[in-house]
């Protein structure tokens, strides 16, 4: 089954969003959020975008179709928050004397649609699907995945932190998504890539017909292809790595001083893991809400915190920041590929942008790539972290 791309104008796209909202479907989409409340954020925005209004883009549950931001900047937090929420109930309990009642939480969810998702974010969901279904199926994750139709917006906004093409994604990929919007003159081309996507197009056929004939298909298709190729080239210019060599090198150089040298300026703040679309590690905690009742929740956790691996005895297998930073790199670029066949990273660059200590994953991967491609497997002498900059 295949449906040719459909042309639609921006107003039709917004009308589509309004249709969904009108039907009571939850729509998640990028929205512009003011950052004026934070003194440093506004000054920071003024440094980077002199004269522009200090706004950040965030994925939000859309209130009305006008709020949909198609400016295509990368949202601060990734899409993962709607599939692995920062905190969610696993069960509730009520205890009276020796008896306990445990109440399960639902694992089925109402249908929802993500509009204008970043391709690096949808791809991340497909990557994380693997661990969430490693022998045991995480029904909370799977339930939300099943209930969600994701429509990507091809991304032409490549900055110096993007490297999606180096890690198996691309600015116009549909991995983890059901359809793709590609900007063209006067509007967008919409093409579905999964059954869920085709069903979505069919369900909204009436609305999508409205712009039929407005865009001649051939030239539009070419135009879209050109823009998509240009975006890919820009991402590729930032970083190209030999993922297999990188994996092999990390796996065989656990105690290499290069890894420690790359970690030294890391503050262990964990902001990178919060904003990362693929970081999925969580904690499980009991929160008492009164005597004999409470909620067991899982909440985001970070491998950068010492408590992440701290034993009750006081022993900590990762007891300094170097080992914790190494774990993050190792997990993403060696462990996950070994276990699940792909890197735990989609090159969105959020970790680099959010790191105010200057940890730069583009530079770090480039540095590892250099040593990984060397014929000799040992790193001679003191490593130079700036080797690749």
């Amino acid at each position, binding site marked *: 089954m295949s449906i040719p791309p459909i042309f639609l104008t921006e107003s039709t796209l917004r009308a589509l969003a309004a249709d969904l909202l009108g039907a009571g479907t939850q729509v998640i989409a990028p929205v512009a959020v003011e950052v004026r409340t934070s003194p440093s954020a506004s000054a920071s925005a003024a440094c980077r975008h002199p004269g522009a209004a200090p706004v950040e883009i965030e994925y939000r549950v859309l209130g009305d179709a006008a709020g949909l931001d198609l400016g295509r900047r990368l949202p601060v937090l990734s899409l993962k928050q709607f599939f692995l929420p920062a905190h969610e109930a696993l069960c509730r309990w009520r205890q009276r004397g020796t008896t306990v009642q445990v109440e399960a939480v639902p694992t089925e969810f109402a249908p929802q649609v993500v509009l204008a998702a970043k391709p690096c974010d949808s791809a991340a969901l497909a990557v994380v699907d693997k661990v969430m279904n490693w022998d045991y199926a995480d029904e909370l994750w799977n339930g939300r995945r099943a209930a969600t139709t994701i429509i990507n917006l091809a991304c032409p906004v490549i900055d110096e932190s993007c490297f999606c093409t180096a890690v198996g994604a691309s600015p116009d990929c549909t991995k983890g998504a059901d359809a793709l919007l590609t900007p063209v003159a006067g509007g967008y081309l919409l093409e579905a890539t999964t059954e869920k996507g085709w069903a979505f197009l069919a369900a909204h056929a009436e609305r999508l017909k409205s712009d039929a004939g407005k865009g001649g298909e051939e030239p539009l298709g070419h135009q879209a292809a050109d823009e998509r190729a240009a975006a890919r080239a820009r991402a590729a210019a930032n970083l190209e790595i030999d993922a297999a060599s990188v994996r092999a090198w990390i796996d065989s150089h656990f105690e290499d001083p290069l890894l420690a040298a790359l970690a030294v300026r890391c503050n262990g703040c964990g902001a990178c893991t919060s904003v990362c679309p693929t970081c999925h590690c969580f904690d499980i905690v009991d929160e008492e809400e009164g005597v004999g009742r409470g909620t067991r929740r899982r909440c985001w956790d970070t491998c950068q915190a010492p408590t992440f691996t701290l034993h009750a005895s006081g022993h900590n297998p990762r007891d300094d920041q170097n080992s914790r930073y190494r774990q993050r790199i190792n997990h993403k670029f060696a462990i996950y590929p070994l*276990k699940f066949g792909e890197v735990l990273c989609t090159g969105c660059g959020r970790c680099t942008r959010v790191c105010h200590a200057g940890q730069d994953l583009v530079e770090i991967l480039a540095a590892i790539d250099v040593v990984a491609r060397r014929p000799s497997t040992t790193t001679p002498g003191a490593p130079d972290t700036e080797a690749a900059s």
Partner: protein
Amino acid sequence: MSIYLPQLATVTDLVDETPDTRTLRLELQDAAARARFAFKAGQFGEYSVFGAGESTFCIASPPTRQGFIECSFKAVGKVTTALREVNIGDTVGFRGPYGNWFPVDDWKGNDIVFVAGGIGLAPVRCVIWNVLDRRDEFGDVTIVYGARSVEDLVYKRELQEWSSRPDVRMVATVDPGGQTAEWTGEVGYVTPVVEKTAPAAANAVAVLCGPPIVVKLTLPVLAKLGFADEAIFTTLENRMKCGLGKCGRCNIGPVYVCKDGPVFTAAQLKQLPPEF
């Protein structure tokens, strides 16, 4: 149904092994789940006190005894302290069994040497009883167990029972200074006592568990006695939350203790990065 939802279990018995170590016997409250429940020696579970949270321990009772499970733990953290407070009849949560197991069926006809230190006897005890409950299938059984002091020995009644069995060679030891006037066992650290006991390595496997230092020092001694790395089995622990390979913290390099372990051979240990 969520994989994180605990089953409810009733505490049907408890033994305070040492001033800070306790053994609980648990029975799943749901009769059908209880009947269905099966596990293998070496697997672990997530035990919870509602309000305190979950904690990970191996199942210390053998799979050959059904209808209940037992766990032994030292009260050191939030959950274990709360578990130390429960009484017979109380309800706790349980998820499991998780992880891999000791390949006991592969050891038929072999001699088996058990070496444990401190609370490390808990997972070994599961295998010991599993083997003793099927005694005919195995060769000689040797148990070397040590603790810091007489007071710190766990499963004291069972140590007695094993000592008195003619088909078990039981060597108990306490660290120098930890003995009492009545102590008739060995005095010395586990590792030299293993060396002195010198179990035959031919056609034998060793099961080793204890504090990291005991494991680290005993491995070369077992090697010296002629045990191949593939014939030495141990069980590791790391901080865990989910037990299901999702929460991402128990890995040692590419190996997840909860899914790829907790049981490893010494040969596998040597492949792991030094981060445990």
